[in-house]
């Protein structure tokens, strides 16, 4: 038979312990408690892992390095996340203002687009500056007339490549901006001079309808004009290489511009698809 003990303070101690436990439950969500418990759990989880699995010292070091790396990465991501949240907040403010201005001036809103990355897999030598074939088609949401861009590493910007001419289920044919008889409105960057770019079956575009007295120089950048119905305004096209003098009696002069995408080997094209709201 076991011996039973009785203490006169057991009820009081029980009450004290009970209320202390209740207090512990009430403070369980305090940041300090959470922090301490996480710290203990982190230490314990490593030690428990050791008991269940025989590990070498090298493995331990690898785990510690991984933990350290993950924490560092986590901190970096948190910082980046904060930056993005700030940017998003600013964007929302700007967008609201933009909507108000659109209503005020009754301007047609800019089309929102999503990007589809496509790989070029056919470029015929005879049609080098005319067409390319990309590996994305109607099954990826691509349709005729969509603008196609390419990333220019030197400028670190997107530049115009062409537009979709034919689409099939998994492939599409892109007509390049350098193809002859291709005309699209452009403007000289930072000078607000509107003109037209014309393809020439080479890497040089003919820039026409430049006003005679316009200050256009070698090295000026050509961007897509706001008059374009295919491309978004401001996308890079090329750079002026030569300015021809206007003929007597003419009100316009012409220039030659080298396309930006010629500097890159076309590996990946970006098709801009209108965003369905």
């Amino acid at each position, binding site marked *: 038979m076991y011996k039973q003990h009785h*203490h006169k303070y*057991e009820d009081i101690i029980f009450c004290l*312990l*009970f209320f*202390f*436990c209740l207090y*512990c*439950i009430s403070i369980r969500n305090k940041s300090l408690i959470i922090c301490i418990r996480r710290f203990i759990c982190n230490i314990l989880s490593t030690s428990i892992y050791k008991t269940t699995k025989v590990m070498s010292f090298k493995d331990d070091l690898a785990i510690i390095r991984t933990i350290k790396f993950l924490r560092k990465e986590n901190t970096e991501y948190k910082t980046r996340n904060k930056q993005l949240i700030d940017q998003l907040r600013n964007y929302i403010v700007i967008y609201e203002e933009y909507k108000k201005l659109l209503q005020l001036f009754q301007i047609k809103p800019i089309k929102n687009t999503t990007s589809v990355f496509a790989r070029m897999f056919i470029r015929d030598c005879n049609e080098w500056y005319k067409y390319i074939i990309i590996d994305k088609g109607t099954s990826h949401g691509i349709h005729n007339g969509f603008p196609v861009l390419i990333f220019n590493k030197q400028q670190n910007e997107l530049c115009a490549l062409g537009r979709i001419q034919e689409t099939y289920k998994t492939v599409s044919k892109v007509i390049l901006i350098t193809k002859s008889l291709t005309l699209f409105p452009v403007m000289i960057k930072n000078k607000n001079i509107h003109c037209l770019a014309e393809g020439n079956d080479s890497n040089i575009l003919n820039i026409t309808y430049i006003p005679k007295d316009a200050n256009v120089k070698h090295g000026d950048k050509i961007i897509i004009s706001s008059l374009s119905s295919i491309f978004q305004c401001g996308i890079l096209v090329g750079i002026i290489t030569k300015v021809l003098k206007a003929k007597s009696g003419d009100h316009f002069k012409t220039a030659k511009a080298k396309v930006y995408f010629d500097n890159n080997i076309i590996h990946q094209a970006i098709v801009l698809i209108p965003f369905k709201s």
Partner: protein
Amino acid sequence: MRQILSQCLTYICCCLIQFCLGEYNTSKYFPNIALIVIIYIAFTKGALHAELFGFFFGITIDSLSIDIFGSKAITLTIIGYIFGKILIKFNKDQIITQCTIVFLASILYLAIIHSMYYISSSNRILNYPYYVILIATITTVAFTPIIFNILKKLG
């Protein structure tokens, strides 16, 4: 002095067994060693020792686990106190009595823990299927006579 050392040793052994094999084991069917030890202490030493052991063991397990902080401490303290008070009326040497008491204690333990999780709107423990809880309880009951004998021999 010997008694204090013995109790400390019991506490450390109990913690090690429960943490290393029970709390962090992949198997959910590990017996609740702490509960059996508390019942044994309630049998032999009375309510005060049982509730103190329950409290210290509970607070340790709460600190080292991710469950609600204080939940196991309060549960084990209550069990230690209640069973320390009522066990005087029973014949403690019989295995059936020991098993019945531990079974009731397990039911009370689960009831309190589940209620606490329910109140705190945390359904972590409630995700366990009932058969898991039942098997865990049966395992605890099955281990009771063995642990009681070990503790009795250890003094």
